[in-house]
């Protein structure tokens, strides 16, 4: 019965976020334009290489499709990984953490509920990137095994959210009160930005960066997506350092295994650290700003 109440509260949070989003229609036009401009820039870049026989084995030869898939994963991770920390910061600076704690619900629900706004904002952006690529800039997709694609999507969602939770817990655990926060920054803005290979195959990276890239779920998800969805994508040749190391498993199944492990580790760890963070804040009296 208790879980029913949590679910009820989550629905209420999402209803509130929807009301707020609808009442302002936020900057709907803004993020449509942002996505468009980003795809334009990469389309122009692909024109730079028009004459040549560009080929980035094993991901086929359509650079726009390659980049658009990168954007797809980028926007998802942008919400799941990037949002939890600023949301917790907003609760802290808004002084409402005290009020949330006074409710019998778990610490987790308010944070999860407020995340819903990120979902409304950013998930459509991922799909939009695919649409722009396909309609305007000549991206071509193949849907070889939809079931695996769906599984990959779920796994990337969970694993990025797990890392997001770990970064949210650092707000209280390590007492970072400004809005830039190392865990999210190191993961999101450094490792992922450089090594996930959103806009270029990781074979371009120097080997140490490639190894660094094998610690984040994005490289595996992108590798699998690109092999399955870009025409001419090869399913067998290993590219990632781990794939090369474990030749006996096929790259796609290896990707899936690694993603499953990462999800099972990051989510519970994120939850545990988040609760510990609030406990610590309770002791230091840094729960809300109104000291």
């Amino acid at each position, binding site marked *: 019965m208790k879980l029913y109440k949590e679910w009820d509260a989550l629905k209420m949070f999402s209803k509130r976020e929807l009301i707020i989003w609808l009442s302002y*229609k936020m900057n709907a036009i803004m993020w449509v334009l942002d996505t468009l401009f980003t795809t334009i820039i990469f389309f122009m870049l692909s024109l730079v290489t028009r004459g040549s026989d560009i080929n980035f084995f094993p991901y086929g030869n359509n650079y726009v499709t390659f980049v658009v898939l990168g954007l797809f994963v980028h926007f998802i991770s942008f919400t799941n990984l990037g949002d939890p920390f600023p949301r917790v910061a907003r609760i802290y600076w808004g002084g409402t953490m005290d009020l949330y704690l006074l409710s019998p619900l778990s610490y987790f629900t308010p944070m999860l509920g407020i995340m819903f706004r990120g979902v409304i904002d950013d998930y459509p952006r991922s799909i939009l990137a695919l649409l722009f690529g396909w309609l305007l800039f000549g991206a071509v997709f193949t849907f070889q095994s939809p079931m695996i694609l769906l599984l990959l999507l779920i796994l990337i969602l969970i694993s990025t959210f797990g890392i997001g939770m770990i970064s949210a817990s650092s707000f209280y655990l390590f007492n970072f009160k400004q809005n830039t926060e190392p865990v999210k920054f190191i993961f999101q803005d450094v490792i992922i930005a450089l090594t996930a290979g959103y806009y270029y195959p990781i074979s371009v990276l120097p080997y140490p960066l490639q190894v660094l890239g094998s610690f984040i779920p994005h490289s595996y998800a992108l590798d699998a997506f690109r092999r399955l969805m870009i025409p001419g994508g090869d399913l067998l040749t290993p590219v990632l350092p781990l794939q090369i190391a474990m030749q006996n498993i096929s790259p796609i199944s290896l990707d899936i295994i690694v993603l499953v492990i990462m999800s099972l580790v990051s989510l519970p760890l994120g939850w545990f650290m988040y609760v510990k963070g609030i406990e610590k804040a309770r002791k230091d009296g840094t729960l809300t700003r109104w*000291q």
Partner: protein
Amino acid sequence: MIVLNKVSKQYKGILVNKNDSGIYLWIKNFLKLTSNKATSLWAIKNISVSIDKGEIFGIYGANGAGKTTLIKMISGLLGTTSGTVEILGRTDPKHMKDTVSYISTNGWMGLEWPLTARENLILYANLFGISGRRLDEKCNEILKMLGMTEAQDKFISQLSAGMRQKITIARGLILDRPIIFYDEPSVSLDLQSSRNLRELIQTDAVQNQRTAIIASHNTEDLAICNRLMFLSKGEMIALGTLDELKKPLNSIQIIEVNCPNAMQNIDLSSLSGVKSVIYTSVEGKRDYQSIKIYAQKGEFSLNALLDYFVESNIAVLEIKSKEITLQEIYEYYLSLRGEGERNEIV
């Protein structure tokens, strides 16, 4: 010193909310500002008053009566929609800003969080071109005056609301300007510090002829003012010294009688000279009933009241004749204008 004639102020524009942004907002604002659909409200309507040197002038009014707008206009932060504000004979905002120092209500939020209390003062003084040794001495002197010496090296986040309010006041004093505005100065100060503040304002006005203008709804703050102005919904409903304002009500004597709650059947209208009676049952575990009697001086005799109690054997806990409170005077003038709530005095 300060002369306002027929000053009025109209706020136009849109309610700014935090969540709207991007192109949708720009177009909406652009359309709204160009079309005159923007909401507008008259914050101040045609006020004329002149305040002379060394005077402590009080402005009393409920929340949203326009106190802050009026003060901002006199301190050069806000222009008037019509009418002029003259300070020492000149009306240009630059001159106003250089002769006035303004201490805002939620000023404590305008502090620099990464700096300590003292550094805030120094930064603020630099903003007005005061610096060097003279600034340091002045800092120490003012911090001692406000009892903040030992808290001066704490960061703003470590100070309580009252201490932060004291820094905003210190910021105002450090400029040593001929005119100082206190906008709800003692809102989060405790008893001791608000009492010190009031003494400080008074000595300041006498010693160095510094004009002080206090906007507040805290009656003790306004008790020290030479003259008072009552403000309601942007209009001046009364102006004068405390006694002048009280004169129409001088003929009224207020007696407060506290009796145990059980006595419901008290009917005092039969007594001569009784203008009106308010029964209010006061909460709290000592549940007694307080009866406020507004009576005409001269006609009313306390003894008749006492005899009434004695005859009807009503136990009396306390009888005291009360001073008229500022709020009651304010409401009297409010009712004169016809908008105040039903008022028993008149």
